[in-house]
């Protein structure tokens, strides 16, 4: 491991839990105002190296911390996240604060409203520290596609934190926030959580409102939390989940007490291990670490059986056709007319559109818009987009069949640990292949959790992905807790 700043300064082995901190704030032993000040001090010290935060929302944070301290002093009831410092991925809007989506095309943009997930956090007492760096428009697996520079992995600053929510994962790993929000379209919460050694949650599609999320692919996008441990992540999900009238795809299902669910023992649970995720391309050390995790589950009383998800190999092409097609539609709104970057000195409206977009979007975003436009264009729609939607159903049916006899499925989250900055960016195909383990669950709409599961010999974190069926996050948390408890 190499870095100018001592890696130990960046990466924090066992930070305080959300529950501990909240108890201290509620009792008055710790002032929320002092806690948030200490987080801003830490951010000032290590953000220049890690490039996690793009902007800070100090005024709003300090006002909230004061409110919490006053309520605590009076003995008023406090929200579940009272005083807890939280960071927000820069694809989620906060009124008046920058929302760049990691892109130049939104430089200077100030949204006039809050995302629902953001409002819910604040209503629960969370102190929102600022906006966090990510791959541009959430497109990427390494946080190297941000127009504002890459984020560095706190465990080894020469390596990527993963993406697209690389900043959100790194923030928790480096204790620059107690918890953060990220988003996951094809793995963008789970994979960076795995690279940085933290817990990341993929909620069921529709579990958390997408209102206020700058859209990438509307049938795939999910908002979810990162935290330093499973119970904290479950608490965070409980706060942001729930039906929202402003998101027509949000689920009306009631929200259980996820933290309590995660406390339940796993004895008797049936765990599936899909053969397709343990084949060629899986790093030997990652395999070994995951196998130890599976052993831990067996010791805890789970029955483990091998299963097959036969359409797995078709998941990545399916994902890239659907995600890029939907992205090409969602990013059509960035045209220089109403907000964001407008290219100067265009003679005609048409030129203004194309110059603004060409100058404002990065290379990967343009690539995906073009692929998506191509996949939807006349003559290709049936062969590409429609075909992908059909294969999507086959993938979803693979999971349905297998879950009929199982409670959860476990896999490695990523076939490889965190790679070095610049190592993969030359070859778009290599980047796409690393998505295999995560896009299947994205396409099927099911939920999952990345839980840290050991390390490689070089000290790089390995993550296990625990998948459960729709709206069964509780089961995923339970299994993840059992892996966490093994302290691998």
């Amino acid at each position, binding site marked *: 491991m190499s870095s100018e700043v001592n890696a130990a300064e960046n990466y924090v082995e066992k930070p305080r839990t959300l529950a501990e901190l909240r108890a201290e704030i509620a009792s008055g032993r710790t002032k929320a105002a002092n806690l948030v000040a200490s987080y801003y001090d830490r951010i000032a010290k290590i953000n220049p190296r890690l490039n996690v935060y793009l902007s800070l929302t100090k005024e709003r944070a300090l006002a909230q911390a004061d409110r919490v301290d006053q309520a605590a002093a009076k003995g008023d009831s406090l929200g579940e996240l009272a005083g807890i410092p939280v960071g927000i991925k820069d694809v989620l809007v906060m009124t008046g604060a920058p929302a760049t989506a990691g892109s130049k095309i939104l430089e200077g943009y100030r949204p*006039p*409203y809050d995302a629902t997930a953001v409002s819910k956090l604040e209503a629960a007492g969370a102190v929102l520290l600022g906006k966090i760096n990510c791959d541009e428009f959430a497109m990427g697996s390494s946080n190297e596609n941000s127009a504002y520079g890459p984020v560095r992995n706190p465990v080894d600053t020469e390596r990527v934190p993963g993406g697209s929510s690389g900043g959100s994962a790194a923030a928790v790993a480096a204790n620059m926030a107690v918890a953060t929000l990220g988003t996951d379209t094809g793995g963008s919460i789970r994979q960076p959580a795995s690279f940085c050694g933290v817990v990341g949650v993929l909620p*069921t*599609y*529709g579990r958390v409102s997408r209102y206020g999320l700058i859209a990438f692919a509307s*049938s795939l996008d999910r908002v979810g939390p990162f935290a330093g441990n499973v119970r904290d992540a479950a608490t965070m999900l409980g706060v942001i989940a729930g039906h929202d*009238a402003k998101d*027509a795809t*949000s*689920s*009306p*299902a009631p929200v259980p007490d996820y933290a309590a669910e995660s406390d339940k023992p796993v004895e008797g649970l049936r765990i599936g291990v899909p053969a397709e995720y343990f084949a060629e391309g899986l790093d030997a050390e990652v395999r070994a670490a995951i196998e130890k995790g599976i052993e831990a589950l067996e010791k805890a009383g789970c029955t483990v059986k091998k299963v097959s998800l036969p*359409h797995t190999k*078709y998941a*990545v*092409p399916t994902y*890239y*056709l659907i995600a890029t097609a939907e992205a090409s539609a969602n990013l*059509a709104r960035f*045209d*220089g*007319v*109403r*907000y*964001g970057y*407008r290219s100067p000195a265009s*003679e*005609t*409206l048409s*030129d*203004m559109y*194309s110059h603004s*977009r*060409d100058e404002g*979007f990065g*290379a990967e975003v343009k690539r995906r*818009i*073009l*692929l998506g*436009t*191509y996949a939807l*264009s006349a003559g290709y729609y049936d*062969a*590409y987009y429609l*075909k*992908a*939607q*059909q*294969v*999507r*159903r*086959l993938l979803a049916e693979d999971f*349905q069949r297998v879950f009929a006899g199982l409670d959860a499925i476990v896999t490695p989250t990523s076939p490889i640990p965190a790679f070095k900055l610049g190592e993969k960016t030359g070859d*778009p*195909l290599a980047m*796409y292949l690393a998505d295999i383990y995560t896009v299947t669950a994205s396409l099927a*709409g099911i939920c999952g959790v990345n839980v840290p599961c050991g390390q490689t010999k070089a000290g790089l974190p390995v993550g296990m992905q625990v998948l459960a*069926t*729709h*709206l069964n996050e509780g089961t995923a948390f339970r299994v993840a807790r059992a892996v966490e408890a093994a302290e691998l």
Partner: protein
Amino acid sequence: MIAKVTVEEVVRVAELAHLKLTQEETVHLRSDLNAILDYVAELNELDTAGVAPLAQMSELPGELGDAADLSSRRPDQVQPSLDRATVMQQAPETNQVLFKVPKVIER
């Protein structure tokens, strides 16, 4: 074997997407699209005759929990929207009511 993408097709698709590409960008993007589309040709290995496309996640069993009613429609009532002045503050060019843009039609 999927037909290779031509430079003309890249330019046409770029026009559809309102992206103005440089010569160099066009060349790079053509080979990127070709590489990715070869990979995508694998989907043609699958027989999907009679398989309904999956477009809405809410139709999957279990997605909505126990809710029998698939529609979460709100009553058809006018609700306040965003404050105009706040929105127009974000406009690159405006007269506070309309967004100003370069001429729409070339004479």
